[in-house]
């Protein structure tokens, strides 16, 4: 699914200055716990979260996440936006709740990460 479809499916706004809407993501995940994101997120995925501090951007960068959607209409502070622009990570904001935002994307065909277990990333 490309980011334009994400944007349209969630009636979202682009929060960061530049966003390449043709970029493709292969799966989605939602969490407010950054350690969970680091443990379970897949590369080239989309992250939905209610947290807006700059560490969310850092976490996404480390985990190879392609874009972040802030739910419940949350707007990140300037430092979060600056960091995202520095590393070229698109940020979106949607007024849907976490539950509904996930549901809409899933219904539109964006898969999740499947059954998860604390997998050993060295042999996966």
């Amino acid at each position, binding site marked *: 699914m490309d980011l334009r479809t994400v944007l349209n499916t969630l009636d979202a706004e682009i929060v960061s200055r530049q966003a390449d809407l043709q970029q493709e993501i292969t799966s989605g995940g939602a969490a407010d716990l*950054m350690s969970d994101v680091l443990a379970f997120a897949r*590369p080239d995925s989309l992250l939905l979260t209610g947290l807006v*501090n700059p*560490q969310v951007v850092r*976490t996404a960068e*480390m985990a190879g996440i392609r874009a972040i959607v802030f739910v419940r209409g949350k707007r990140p502070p300037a430092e979060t936006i600056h960091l995202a622009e520095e590393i070229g990570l698109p940020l979106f904001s949607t007024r849907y709740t976490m539950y509904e935002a996930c549901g809409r994307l899933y219904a539109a065909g964006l898969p999740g990460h499947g059954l998860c277990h604390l997998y050993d990333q060295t042999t996966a």
Partner: protein
Amino acid sequence: MSARSTLEVTRLQELIYDLKIKEIMQCDVITVTPQTPMQEFKELLRLKRISGTPVVEGDRLVGIISLEDLIKALERGEMNAQVGDKMTRTVKTLYADESVVQAVNQMARLGFGRFPIVNRSGQLVGILTRGDIIRGLLRRLQLNYQEVESQHYRTSHLFEEIVSDQTSLVLRYRVQAGDFSRGGTASSHIKRAIERLGGKPPLARRVAVAAYESEMNLIIHTDQGGEMVVEIQPDQVHIVVTDTGPGIPDIEQAMRPGFSTAPEWIREMGFGAGMGLINIKNCADEMKLESAVGAGTHLEIWFRFSPPTSLTGEKKEEDLL
């Protein structure tokens, strides 16, 4: 011009010729019909911040109307007219599978700012403006640049050109305690270093996640911060994280998923869920954790890949791509 840069220019030109209109055009086209009142067309331009649209009847393209046509209608007080009366009927279109170079040439020759794009059966499938071309080319150039850059900085160059019995590159980072907002800066640099040295994305990711968890531990849990030393060798990455206290009283307990001593404000930030050390262990090929209360903590992690294939090597399928 050196042979190498001549080669690169040629490659760029090839890329631009290779780029097809359908790769950079906008697919969701805003259109009007011949019956649309000019007044409504004006509002559409304002709301969508565009300067013209194709005019369609069913799925047939019948004309094109622009800001210029609107200004003429305004001057003549003809805003009650319909788009069909004011539009340009002979529309120059381009095919979606044509090269972008075609579009650039046609724009220069005809002076048009936009072209409706049709497929080979004549249906409207997109629109192409000067902005789309610039964005498309820049993106392509950037991708190409990244490829060229990562080729330039392959480990094999660095590690093969410098001869020693054991060559390694050492990166040192100082991490301040409590510096939450800058947390991850070191790990970001580490990740980029691995990538530039030719490490494949999965390897760069494993190292980055482990480094980031370690860095956040220094920020959240130590009295005076600590140091991260990353040693990159042709066959492994070794990270040593040290601090001077307070130390971990019970390592077994600290390794248990969900166990955490993080303060509430850290948890509100999405950290301190008691998963950090487990994450590090799962990302690394080997991990060694030693700690003494009052003395500090010493964490060592190894990421291995087999020589002589080096950082770009083939041992772990994961690290390949």
